[in-house]
């Protein structure tokens, strides 16, 4: 798609904003609407846009499939790992209150942040993987 300079330029301008917005949605989910799931999808949408305009090979170079495979499982592992960490610290599975020994509310904050991060990583990797699978199949 070398000849379409307008979409290329617009993508270049928009891409950092999209990725930044995804991170904002990810880490501001405690305060406003949004959370890991939405953030993951927005992050993936940024990469999908990049792959559509600049081609799948360039996108694969930036976000290689092996990294995505790691991400797909890493997110679930983080989530479940937070649950197991709570168990090891003497609480129930997915009880974040025990993560901070002084203040259970801080523990809840930390737990939710980590869990949402896990969701975000998994969702973003899954969406990009599925897009790669579809786009790679057509060629």
């Amino acid at each position, binding site marked *: 798609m070398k000849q379409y300079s307008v979409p290329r330029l617009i993508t270049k301008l928009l891409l950092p904003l999209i990725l930044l917005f995804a991170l904002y*949605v990810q880490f501001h989910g405690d305060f406003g609407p949004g959370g890991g799931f939405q953030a993951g999808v927005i992050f993936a949408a940024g990469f999908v846009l990049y792959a559509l305009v600049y081609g799948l090979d360039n996108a694969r170079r930036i976000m290689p499939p092996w990294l995505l495979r790691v991400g797909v499982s890493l997110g679930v592992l983080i989530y479940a790992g937070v649950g197991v960490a709570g168990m090891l610290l003497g609480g129930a599975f*997915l009880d974040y209150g025990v993560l901070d020994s002084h203040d259970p509310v801080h523990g*809840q904050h930390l737990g939710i942040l980590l869990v*949402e991060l896990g969701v975000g990583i998994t*969702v973003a990797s899954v969406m990009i*993987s599925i*897009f790669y699978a*579809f786009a*790679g199949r057509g060629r």
Partner: protein
Amino acid sequence: MLLSLLVVTALAVIRLRDLFAVVMLFGIYSLLSASLFVVLDAVDVAFTEASVGAGVATVFMLGTLALTTSREKIPGAHKPLLPLLAVLVTGAALIYGTSDIPHYGDPGDPIHHHVAPRYLEDSAEEIGIPNVVSSVLASYRGYDTLGETTVVFTAAIGVLLLIGGARRRRRSEEPPRPDREEEDA
């Protein structure tokens, strides 16, 4: 107004045979649903609907069209009476069912008297984050969200097994199948 636009879009989706236009209309449908959720004050749901339904799902459906075909096949001669009857009976049952649903925003609804009051009243003290939706999703209902994340994980594995990797080998063995993946979020 939004609901009537939804109905118009749905009717257009049924009538059209050009699947590219249908995919675009699905995107519009999702965007309209998202606006509807905003009107109902469910911004988190609207956010998900707009990003998933109108965003990436549209791209995935376009990808499916690129792999298969963008014209819907004209169905062969079959009697439409039995399906019509089934649809009418189901629709009538659903409409009959709506008569029992409490009015929207009625404070006496059962849903406002189950666990919701506890979440709303105690979330600020127990979890301490302003967005109650996040505290319910990630903390009170942590098991459910873990399950959802696992579902997304499983979906990726399914898609990758079906149409991911090893495509060079498979291409020589068999023609690409019109696989279709659908995901609920």
